[in-house]
């Protein structure tokens, strides 16, 4: 079990990093407006807290630097000093030093020396001129004619990066077009240039995607606080562990899933984990475990919320689904547990007996599902009654460029995002059976319904699909197995074309109401290719199955 010291250390780190971020923000405000009162007050307060916390942890040097900066900001606030001249430089050096010290604490390394900095801060407090490091001063004097001192870091608005990524997307499409043309024209010089263009635009694309990546930790590190607040409101003891904070992901994706993750974590503490009495009665340790972890799997990022609580009561969910009219009692009885759990993500479906302050304000897991659908991600759930529940968010690393499988139906190409594809199969007629008018094959010990993609795309009307018979199967069938909400579906296609990274453009009006298509992409040949929306296809199949 985690010791109290470890807990304090984690809390200290999370809060110190938060303070440091705020400090940097308020400092840049102060740079624009040296008399910004609110920023000065905040800087003063943040320094004060950091000092107190650092001293309590025994990081005395860190506390000392924060203490000096606190005093200095107090003087600036009381208008005894102004935020200008050499003072500005020492303050920036000071805040940078705090950042380095905090990071050193986080990495369990010795804190960097701050003697010279402390001396300068002392001088400023006493009203004397700081002594800028001789070497540094000499160097800057020497170089003052040649260059200005600029930071190696540039802050950039996410909007600008979004724009850049969109432009790269356009470029990639044209690149593919030029590549195809070059091959058709068979001009060696053009082909060589096109190949070069291919390589550099590939590099460019990855560089831009890379610039947008942040560590998942920036989100995960906010959770110790959330968990503690919810746990204390619920009167539960919860031990939170975090891992995989360094896993990289697109900043906007992280933004979009923030609420979803918050919901899952609150849910886990409020409903997933039992009360102390219940845990004791079940012979479990009193302290509930909650683990938030991030990991990379192929091109995807997985974020998991795992608790060792009561697990999902499958039978209760089954009853509730029938009560709510989501499924007939007969059908419900035949569903396996994964299919039953999928009801948890239906809009408005809630298993909460009572609405608590913290979670369950009538908001269900469908919110989480919606956020993931909008990203083309997936939500998986694993649970064992009495043992615990794990929710896994499967996320793309980047928004704009997605891996896709191109398939052909009736001589038209369609793209299916790889996130939703499980596997491709080439099935002999003997491997396919007919059950209740639906073609079925067995894959990984699971029965997977098959449907010709042609029928889903071309059959008009809301009526059920025609009953399938053995006569429909002539020769080997090319099947793409897709997965949505723990349901597998085999799409029968004419042929597989290839796997390719595609840039998805949203459909514009009036086509954006067609929910079977998630967007459109241009192939190198200049051909327009529709991107299939697997969630919508799955729903359509479930509605129309005979």
């Amino acid at each position, binding site marked *: 079990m985690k010791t*109290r010291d470890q*807990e*304090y250390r984690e*809390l*200290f780190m999370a*809060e110190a990093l938060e303070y440091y971020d705020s400090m940097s923000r308020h400092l840049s405000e102060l740079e624009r407006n040296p008399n910004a009162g609110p920023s000065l007050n*905040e800087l*003063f*307060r943040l320094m*004060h*807290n950091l*000092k*107190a*916390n650092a*001293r*309590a942890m025994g990081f005395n040097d860190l506390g000392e630097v924060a*203490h000096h900066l*606190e*005093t200095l900001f*107090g003087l600036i606030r009381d208008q005894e000093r102004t935020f200008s001249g050499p003072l500005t430089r020492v303050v920036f050096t000071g805040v940078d030093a705090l950042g380095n010290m905090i990071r050193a604490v986080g990495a369990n390394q010795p804190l960097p020396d701050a003697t010279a900095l402390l001396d300068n801060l002392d001088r400023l407090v006493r009203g004397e001129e700081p002594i800028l490091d001789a070497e540094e001063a000499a160097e800057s004097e020497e170089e003052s004619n040649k260059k200005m001192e600029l930071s190696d870091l540039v802050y950039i608005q996410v909007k600008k990066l979004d724009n850049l990524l969109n432009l790269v997307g356009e470029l990639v499409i044209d690149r593919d077009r030029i590549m195809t043309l070059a091959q058709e024209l068979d001009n060696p010089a053009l082909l060589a240039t096109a190949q070069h263009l291919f390589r550099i635009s590939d590099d460019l694309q990855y560089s831009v995607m890379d610039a947008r990546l942040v560590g998942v930790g920036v989100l995960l590190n906010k959770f110790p*606080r959330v968990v*503690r607040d919810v746990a*204390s409101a619920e009167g539960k003891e919860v031990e939170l562990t975090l891992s995989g904070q360094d896993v990289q992901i697109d900043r906007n994706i992280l933004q979009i899933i923030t609420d979803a993750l918050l919901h899952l974590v609150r849910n886990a503490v409020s409903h997933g984990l039992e009360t102390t009495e219940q845990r004791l009665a079940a012979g479990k340790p009193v302290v509930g475990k909650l683990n938030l972890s991030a990991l990379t799997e192929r091109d995807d990022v997985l974020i998991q919320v795992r608790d060792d609580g009561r697990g999902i009561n499958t039978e209760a969910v089954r009853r509730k689904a029938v009560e709510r009219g989501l499924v007939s009692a007969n059908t419900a009885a035949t569903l396996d547990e994964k299919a039953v759990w999928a009801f948890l993500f239906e809009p408005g479906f809630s298993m909460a007996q009572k609405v608590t302050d913290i979670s369950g304000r009538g908001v269900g897991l469908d919110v989480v599902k919606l956020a993931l659908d909008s990203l083309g991600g997936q939500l998986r759930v694993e649970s064992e009654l009495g043992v615990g529940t794990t929710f896994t968010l499967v996320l793309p690393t980047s928004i704009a460029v997605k891996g896709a499988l191109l398939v052909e139906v009736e001589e038209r190409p369609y793209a299916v995002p790889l996130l939703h594809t499980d596997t491709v199969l080439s099935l002999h007629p003997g491997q396919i059976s007919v059950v209740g008018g639906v073609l079925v094959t067995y894959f990984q010990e699971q029965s997977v319904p098959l449907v010709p993609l042609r029928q889903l795309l071309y059959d008009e009307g809301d009526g059920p699909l025609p009953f399938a018979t053995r006569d429909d199967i002539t020769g080997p069938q090319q099947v793409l197995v897709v997965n949505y909400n723990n349901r597998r579906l085999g799409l029968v296609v004419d042929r597989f074309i290839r796997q390719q990274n595609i840039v998805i453009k949203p459909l514009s009006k009036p086509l954006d109401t067609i929910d079977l298509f998630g967007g459109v992409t241009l192939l190198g040949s200049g051909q327009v290719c529709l991107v299939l929306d697997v969630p919508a296809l799955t729903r359509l199949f479930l509605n129309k199955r005979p």
Partner: protein
Amino acid sequence: MNKRILIVDDSFYMRTMLKNMLTDAGYEVVGEAANGAQALEMATATSPDLITLDVILPDNTGLDVLKSLRQIQPSAKVVMCSAVGQEVIVTEAIENGALAYIVKPFSEEKVLEIVGSALQGDASEQSA
């Protein structure tokens, strides 16, 4: 009955540490407020026996909160918490009815000693 304590501090870390110390010693921590507004709200809602009050808070200074607290909960005993450097405010706080003050970083012993004697009503101008 256990004495009931409200903790007011804008640092989550500090609140956690204080809460653990006080809870371990058998006190009941009835609330944790992170700013002045929350402090006043929780003090009204929970009527604590004692409030530990941080001197520097995001929305008000601890001193303003102290003055309001004295009005809405005159029976609650208030102990100020502060890191060194804010002695002027602390002195003013004592003049405004705070019973004692605890200097951060605090040791468990000192916290319990000051809180204990403040609750007995015989503490005055104590410091750690």
